[in-house]
């Protein structure tokens, strides 16, 4: 017989009791089941009869952090449904960490007033909730994070999530959830569940709320069962009309078309427009229309894009199905056409917010972008961009992936009209800096194009291609001549919002407006 010789490494179990597992695997206690799949399905699942029981099982306590995703956009029922229940159960001082919030979340106002919600983290705020917060509803300021910044904060433990409440259009009894289902047609769809993935993965407890329990395994899944603790069936997760429109329409607005055509010209002349390039386009009218102009240029030059990233729209899907965009990386599907493509197209891939834009990963997808086309509420002569507060100082937007993609892309183009009605969009100083000007390369307006002085070679390139380039100061002056000089916004000293950059540093503060 050989003497056994093994290093006494503490992390390796010692040899005493070789071949004799204990606990649930001991001889007396062997947990092996001889039931068939059908029998097992009938006897065990993660489905909990009521939300209240699931909340109790999750161990949620006063002062903890609950999280939500915003894939149901303005059709979301989940946030209000859950917060109403938590209020009814008597919870107080909660932190609500949503990937974003919309007009439909106005009912949160009363949960803030009654002390159920003490603090909010989000990418954006709109409607009467945003108005109320801008007017001093909350004692603690709202923390605004970009999609990449939020993913980083969750992963690093800066934003620990105690319980994630994630709505899903389909889920099997063990927690494989997705924004659509392969098994059925129709029903509520949201496409990608990119922003929910990080929450499910990192929350101490994850509860899926679904209106649609499907057969195991719900493959392909956006959220794997390994990230899910409990499932609650609810009659409605959202209003399909608010979750997404059928297909985002091409704009007929001549201003937007002018802007889109100019932006496409800039991309084509910039040096990034080569075979295998990568691109992201936003969902605004002008940035959507860029796809149409770019398509013609791709066909003319005989090149294709290796991938399109981001919030995905039907116009990207059109390019993909035409073979002009090889692959799609989708963190959020903006319309039904995009959601259906995610379901049906093999190379339309669902990705998480972290994969998309976390600054902790140098290989995140935004860092592999050649060009991004972004919208803006305001830009200023420093090229700083505001996508969060309106010209009256009131919160009315969302950071989204704006700072993430502007930083990551080799060419960050911001498109916006020179003026909207009487509101100037190119100004001396934006109300709120969300994306720093040093990461913005080109501003495209309906009255001209300005290139960041940091990019003097790019400026030369565009001019060589016959594109007229103004200075940003000239654009600002032109706007001022058209609309006049607006009175400065009257603010109080109280801070109602903290705008963070991708790494969590404070980019700007939003103050309470004075009536």
């Amino acid at each position: 017989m050989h003497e056994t010789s093994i290093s006494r490494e503490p992390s390796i179990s010692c040899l005493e009791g070789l071949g004799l597992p204990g606990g649930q695997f001991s001889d007396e206690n062997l947990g092996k089941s001889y039931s068939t799949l059908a029998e097992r399905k009938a006897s065990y699942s993660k489905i909990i009869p009521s939300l209240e029981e699931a909340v109790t099982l999750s161990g949620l306590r006063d002062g903890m952090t609950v999280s939500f995703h915003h894939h149901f956009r303005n059709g979301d029922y989940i946030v209000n449904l859950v917060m109403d229940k938590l209020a009814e159960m008597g919870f107080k001082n909660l932190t609500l960490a949503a990937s974003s919030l919309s007009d439909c979340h106005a009912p949160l106002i009363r949960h803030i007033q009654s002390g159920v919600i003490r603090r909010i983290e989000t990418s954006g705020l709109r409607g009467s909730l945003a108005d109320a917060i801008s007017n001093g509803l909350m004692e603690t300021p709202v923390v605004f994070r970009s999609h990449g910044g939020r993913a980083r904060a969750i992963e690093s433990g800066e934003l620990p999530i105690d319980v994630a409440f994630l709505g899903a259009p389909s889920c099997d009894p063990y927690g494989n959830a997705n924004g659509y289902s392969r098994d059925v047609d129709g029903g509520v769809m949201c496409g990608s569940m990119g922003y929910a993935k990080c929450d499910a993965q990192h929350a101490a407890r994850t509860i899926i709320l679904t209106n649609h329990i499907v057969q195991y395994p719900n493959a392909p899944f956006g959220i794997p069962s390994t990230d899910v603790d409990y499932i609650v069936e609810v009659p409605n997760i959202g209003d399909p009309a608010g979750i997404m429109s059928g297909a985002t329409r091409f704009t007929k607005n001549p201003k937007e078309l002018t802007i889109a055509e100019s932006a496409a010209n800039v991309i084509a002349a910039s040096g990034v427009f080569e075979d295998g390039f990568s691109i992201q386009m936003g969902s605004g009218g002008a940035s959507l229309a860029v796809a149409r102009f770019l398509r013609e240029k791709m066909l003319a030059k005989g090149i294709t894009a290796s991938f399109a990233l981001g919030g995905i729209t039907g116009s990207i899907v059109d390019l993909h199905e035409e073979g002009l965009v090889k692959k799609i990386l989708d963190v959020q599907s903006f319309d039904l056409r995009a959601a259906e493509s995610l379901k049906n197209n093999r190379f339309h891939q669902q990705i998480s917010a972290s994969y998309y834009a976390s600054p902790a990963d140098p290989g995140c997808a935004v860092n592999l972008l050649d060009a991004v086309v972004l919208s803006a509420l305001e830009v200023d002569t420093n090229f700083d961009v505001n996508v969060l507060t309106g010209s009256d100082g009131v919160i009315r937007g969302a950071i989204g992936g704006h700072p993430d993609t502007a930083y990551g892309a080799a060419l960050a183009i911001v498109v916006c009209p020179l003026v909207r009605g009487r509101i100037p969009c190119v100004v001396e100083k934006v109300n709120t800096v969300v994306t720093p000007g040093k990461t913005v390369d080109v501003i495209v307006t309906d009255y001209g194009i300005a290139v960041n002085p940091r990019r003097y070679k790019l400026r030369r390139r565009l001019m060589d291609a016959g594109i007229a380039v103004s200075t940003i100061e000239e654009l600002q002056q032109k706007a001022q001549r058209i609309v006049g000089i607006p009175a400065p916004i009257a603010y109080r000293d109280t801070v109602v919002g903290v705008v963070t950059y991708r790494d969590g540093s404070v980019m700007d503060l939003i103050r309470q407006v004075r009536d």
Partner: protein
Amino acid sequence: MKVLKAAVSGTMESSDIMVTVAPNEGGGLAIDLNSTVEKQFGAAIRAAIAETLEQLGIRDARVTAVDKGALDCVIRARVKASAFRACEREDYVWEVRT
């Protein structure tokens, strides 16, 4: 000019202003403005209305304006049109050839 009746011009469309000019005998100028850009341009719009009426020699008028972000030139044109209608005057000169 003297305001004889209430008269209106303009629309509620974006970038337009609907201006009603009505008599206000001996009451001076009263402006009731409702604007989507009140915070940024409320004072400028009131000044443009007052100045335009003053140029027409109108001292007494009750002006009701619903503004949807009209530019200064639009505001002045709408005020003038309403004023001429309210004064039942047609001797306006829209165009000056030089």
